[in-house]
């Protein structure tokens, strides 16, 4: 926990505790959570980013059909992937039994964009307009080859569940800028197309061994954007206010009697809950957004719960000072019918993603917002199942894949890292997920080696014992 957030927490408590309690706010905070002081570390350097918007593409988008241009593959159509390239890479049970590993060149055309001449596939026409703002890392790699362990590694720095999500670390490290909203918000959308939507897991935005106040709060598109947010029928905000006043009056008597700081903390939490009851619906209500906003984000943006609608919400969350905004769009697991699947996924995500970048830029938010777009691993150059000229599938591939970064402190208009001719192995500048996380924390003003939490006798980090800041992607 760093100093600024602590002060936030103190002033928030101070504001709420008024004076009836007879106990100083600072003492209160220290008693409630002595660890706050134990872990206090001021930021080591000035942060470039105040917040992160992580556009998680769950299911693993194919780097070969979006970012990693391999013109040479055309001449390898339906030829076997050379065993020397494949090396000792283990294969999933889905293709391990295949007799052949026929190379499947992308059906999509690639073009250079912007002044930088960044190569992007035709599936991303909207994102392409921001070619000079984004930095594609083509050499990201991971160890896991199945969705659950890989997504868990991407989110928590470890394949097995139990550790805090990236957002929880940031929330722990920096706290919230908004006293009425959580520091870490997760938003989930399903694909519109007929594709396999990989399941997610509450632990992916969980706080692991960190106290659960740091966990991500998932906003959903239903009646209650946050679980149990709405009062029951018949209970108006005025009635709720009156009931809370009763509870507070009784809790104050309790506090006077028992002097337990937890009681005071509970009074505060009920007040925060009450404020969330108005702050969250106001946030989630897109009806006052001007019509042209929906035009920018595309037709899907009017449907609550879509990726496009979530992108508008992401901007609203960013405006309100939420530190870590994580979107999950499912449906990138193209084991078969990849071309139509990718088209459909890009239909869902390309325009809204670009609209979000445009809006952040227009409102001056991109300067201090780090935007990350990507999934949990890459996909194989060889076809899973039958390969034809215009159809193929791709299996999971952990050795290399592409993601992009934009915004605060990122040197846009570049592709970093290189893979071999088959986008199977990295030949230059490998970036591990730990490196990515170390870099993102660095931009937030946090030293990944210092942001630690003692659990089971060990000081844990998001980056475990690894992680190097990828300096060339930074301005």
């Amino acid at each position: 926990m760093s100093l600024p957030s602590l002060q936030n927490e103190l002033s928030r408590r101070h504001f709420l505790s008024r004076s009836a309690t007879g106990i100083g706010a600072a003492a209160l905070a220290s008693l409630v959570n002595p660890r706050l002081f134990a872990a206090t570390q001021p930021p080591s350097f000035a942060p470039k980013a105040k917040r992160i918007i992580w556009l998680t593409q769950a299911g693993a988008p194919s780097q070969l059909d979006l970012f990693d241009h391999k013109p040479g593959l055309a001449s390898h159509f339906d030829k076997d992937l050379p065993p020397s390239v494949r090396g000792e890479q283990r294969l999933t049970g889905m293709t391990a039994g295949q007799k052949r590993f026929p190379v499947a060149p992308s059906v999509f055309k690639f073009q250079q964009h912007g002044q930088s001449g960044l190569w992007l596939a035709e599936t991303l026409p909207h994102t392409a307009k921001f070619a000079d703002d984004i930095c594609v890392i083509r050499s990201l790699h991971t160890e896991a080859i199945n969705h659950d362990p890989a997504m868990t590694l991407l989110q928590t720095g470890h394949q097995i569940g139990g550790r805090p999500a990236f957002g929880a670390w940031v929330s722990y490290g920096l706290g919230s800028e908004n006293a009425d909203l959580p520091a870490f918000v997760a938003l989930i959308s399903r694909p519109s197309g007929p594709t396999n939507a990989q399941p997610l897991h509450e632990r992916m935005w969980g706080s692991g061994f960190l106290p659960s106040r740091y966990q991500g709060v998932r906003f959903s598109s239903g009646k209650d954007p946050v679980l149990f947010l709405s009062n029951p029928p018949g209970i108006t905000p005025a009635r709720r206010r009156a009931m809370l006043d009763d509870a507070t009056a009784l809790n104050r008597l309790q506090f006077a009697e028992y002097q337990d700081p937890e009681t005071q903390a509970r009074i505060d939490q009920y007040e925060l809950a009450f404020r969330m009851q108005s702050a969250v619906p106001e946030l989630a209500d897109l009806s006052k957004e001007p019509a042209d906003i929906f035009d920018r984000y595309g037709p899907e943006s009017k449907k609550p719960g879509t990726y496009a609608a979530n992108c508008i919400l992401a901007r609203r969350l960013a405006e309100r000072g939420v530190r870590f905004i994580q979107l999950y769009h499912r449906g990138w697991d193209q084991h078969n019918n990849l071309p139509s699947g990718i088209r459909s996924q890009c239909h869902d995500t390309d325009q809204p993603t670009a609209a979000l970048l445009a809006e952040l830029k227009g409102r001056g938010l991109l300067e201090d917002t780090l935007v990350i777009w990507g999934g949990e691993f890459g996909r194989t150059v060889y076809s899973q199942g039958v390969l034809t000229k215009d159809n193929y599938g791709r299996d999971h591939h952990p050795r290399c894949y592409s993601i992009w970064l934009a915004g605060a402190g990122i040197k846009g208009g570049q592709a970093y890292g290189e893979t071999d001719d088959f986008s199977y192995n990295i030949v230059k500048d490998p970036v591990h997920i730990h490196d990515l996380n170390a870099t993102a924390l660095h931009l937030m003003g946090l030293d990944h080696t210092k942001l630690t939490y003692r659990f089971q006798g060990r000081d844990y980090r998001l980056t475990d014992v690894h992680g190097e800041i990828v300096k060339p992607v930074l301005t």
Partner: protein
Amino acid sequence: MKRIIYLVSALLLAEAAVRAQEPVSFSREIRPILSDNCFSCHGPDELQRKAGLRLDVREAALKPAKSGKLAIVPGDVRKSELLKRINSSDAGEVMPPPKSHKVLTSAQKQKLRQWVAQGAKYEEHWSFVAPSPVKVPSVRRKDWPRNPIDQFVLARLESAALKPSTEALKPVLIRRVTLDLTGLPPTPAEVDAFVADTSAQAYEKVVDRLLKSPRYGERMAVDWLDAARYADSNGYQVDRDRELWPWRDWVIRAFNENKPFDQFTIEQLAGDLLPNPTLEQRVATGFHRNHMLNEEGGIIAEEFLAEYTADRVETTAAVWLGQTFNCCRCHDHKFDPFTQRDFYSLKAFFHNVPERGVGIYANPIRQNAPPFVKLPSPATEAKLAALNGKLKAVNGQLTALTNRSVSGVEEWAQRVASAVVKWEPVSLLQASGGDQPPVIDASASTLEVGPQETRPNTVKLTARLPAGRLTALRLECGTTATSASFQWSELKLGQQKVRAIAWGDSLASGETEKVLDNDRKTRTVLAMKPERPVHAVFEFEPALAAESGREVEIEIGVENAGGPSRWRLFATDLQPDLLTPTAVEAITRKESAGRSKAEQQQLAAFRIAQQPDHRKLNDELGSLKKQVTAAENEIPTTLVMEEQKDPRPTFILMRGAYDKPGSAVTAATPAVLPALSPEMPRNRLGLAKWLVSTENPLTARVTVNRFWQQVFGSGLVKTSEDFGSQGALPSHPELLDWLAQEFIRSGWDVKQLLRLMVTSATYRQASRFTPALRERDPENRWLARGPRHRLMGEFIRDQALSASGLLVDQLGGPSVKPYHPPGLYEQITAGNGYNTYVPGKGDELRRRSLYTYWKRSVPHPAMLLFDAPFRESCTLRRPRTNTPLQALNLLNDPTYVEAARFLAQRMMKEGGSTEEARLTMGFRLLLARPPAPAELKILQAAYARAHADFTKDPEAAKSFLAVGSAGYDTKLNLTELAAFTTVASTLLNLDETVTKE
């Protein structure tokens, strides 16, 4: 704040001054410094060791390092390089190095210096040394202690010049102990009886009553389920159901029967290896099948077998030994003397289970991964025997029928071959259903079903049949996608009975029947290509007469659809016995002499199957089979441990990677702990007996500490999961050892141990903070006051249900699904039918929380919001946070809104006639004590306000009372009930309510 720091430091300095004269304790003072700051490079892990220096073992620490210098020269502070380095101001020389971000305080440096000066004595880590007999300390104040626990506590308090608190008031005390031992609040009658009982043993009587309550086992089970990572789903990505609740019920029974903890251990770890194990003892071994199971497609079995076995090692080490073995999965432990070899030697005990490593996704949901045992009730067994008898008889009759020769096959075959089938298109009038409604094309002949991802879906169709008599209907299903697979589960044609008689392409005969069996779970998967539609023909039984209604309602059950699919329907008046599958038709077209024997048999069999008597028997057979399946599905199974005949070899896995085996190991206990006796078998049974042997220095300490944590809110060793050198030191080491020895002496008697704790004067103290205590001991480590902390989520809910009279106290059984925010599963999990949360009905909504269905990827929010773990791995200590999401849950969850209403009803019906009496009743139902005058005044004002408010807005009162499914007593005045309900809701949300006072 400054004042507190000042006070605390003054206190520390004063203590330090006293201790400067005393010999330094390696265990208490030095090892924690070395462990935290030095061991990661100079500790047990050989591979990570720097400069050839090892500091955790004395002989090694006194040897010259690689540089030739001596880190420690006992008694000589000037020659000891360690002291020089820790005091160095040179960044390249100072220890710990700046890169480690570790900094020694000057007090720590001073301590190390003192220790070296005093001869650098080492002691073995306290928890690895068996407790030696402890003398119960004498205390100055003789009238306070009630049992030896109090003497240990008071001695410590007296040495710190602190006084114990007064005893808690009786209502507070009975609520505390009832919540601690049963997880439920006491009833007002129980409180009254206790208050009225002035005998010396009044409190002990309450404790004995609670220990005998079946609710005790339910309460005790909750912590054990966390430890055992119990859940009702397999975890990982797919996270489908599993069945292990019979094991959970075993745990409840074991606690209620007060099974001695050593036996409790042996049966759960190795019940199957006991001589002539009972079914119960085998059920107990479910403990180590609680780990997750991956069913994701394409996973590598070996990789996950390595995960499950590692999980068993880590869980065993944490639960019984209080050690963090996960550290030595990849390398030797950095802080404690456990090696990677120790880890894999322990794994060898757990590696011989005949398990596959992966789940089988194709299996029906709820089907457990072997090994498991079936637990049929006698009634089900009898039912199955009867059904199987009938099944055999009908099968016999059917075989006899099939084997008879039938005449006229050839004549029929010729009719089939020459038949001209005319299929008239059916006009489609209207269609509905699904997230994306199906579309009928302009010619009214084709229905297009969009992809439905989210939930099982029914397409409803109104169709107009062609004129004239009709005998059969044909459904055709095609796709526009290049290839698609599509699941079809049901077909219903209004009231009309139909029989599948022909099918083609990807459909097989058995599958056509699956869509007629009125069971959505049985489906046929249609793999389609645009050029190859799938079709199925259904005969009307009886045929539709010409004058019958021409419009028909058709229902098509469509599950997880993989691509847009098109349906077309046709009808015919052809004699139905001429409609055959393509393959049969092809045979009829051959010259009879040209048919092979197999073809002739196929033809005859098909003809015979068309005969009415055959059809009748076949229907009967189908119905019996369904009944057998249904009865078999009723039989609970439960996962168990078994031992393979041929043990799997076990290897040290390099860096913990499943595909990097190193040297082979055999089953052995950790080298640093007392050896496994040579008479013991080298299997799980030997391991279990070793864990609970009297020589084991850890198990009893770790176990009593956890029970202490359960009752006092925090263990004597605060890090109840870590008794290693990075763990906290015991606040009362002698008390811990005394309790551990007492526990063993009592024959590992858990109830006796808890009785000892809750009848102590220590436990009975009032829980008030005083300014002095708040400053000197905010965490209550010295126990100068009683425990006060928030209840676990389970018990907050149980308390609300119990106080409101809603709680259903059925013991055990399959897990149930109480109220749940709609759509929660759908948003997170895969979009299949079993991933929809369907709340239970009636009693299932109001069972104790430990029976709530636990899905690992989406645990029930009522628990998760209150710090329950995901149950993916062993958890021995839950955090206790205080968040706005908890407030929202208690304010707005229908569970609590309904409980508030029922609490209000009790207030009105049982509270008496005055408002004051009724409010007091509600207060007492939750808090045991009556409200103080100031509190009552607030409640009265709250009630009056709400009453006035609802009088003006009766509609609001009505809708507020309609929440949930339990209804309300309509004889009560609605406005009053609504007003009392708001007060009850406030009571349910009080700090005191969610707190054990």
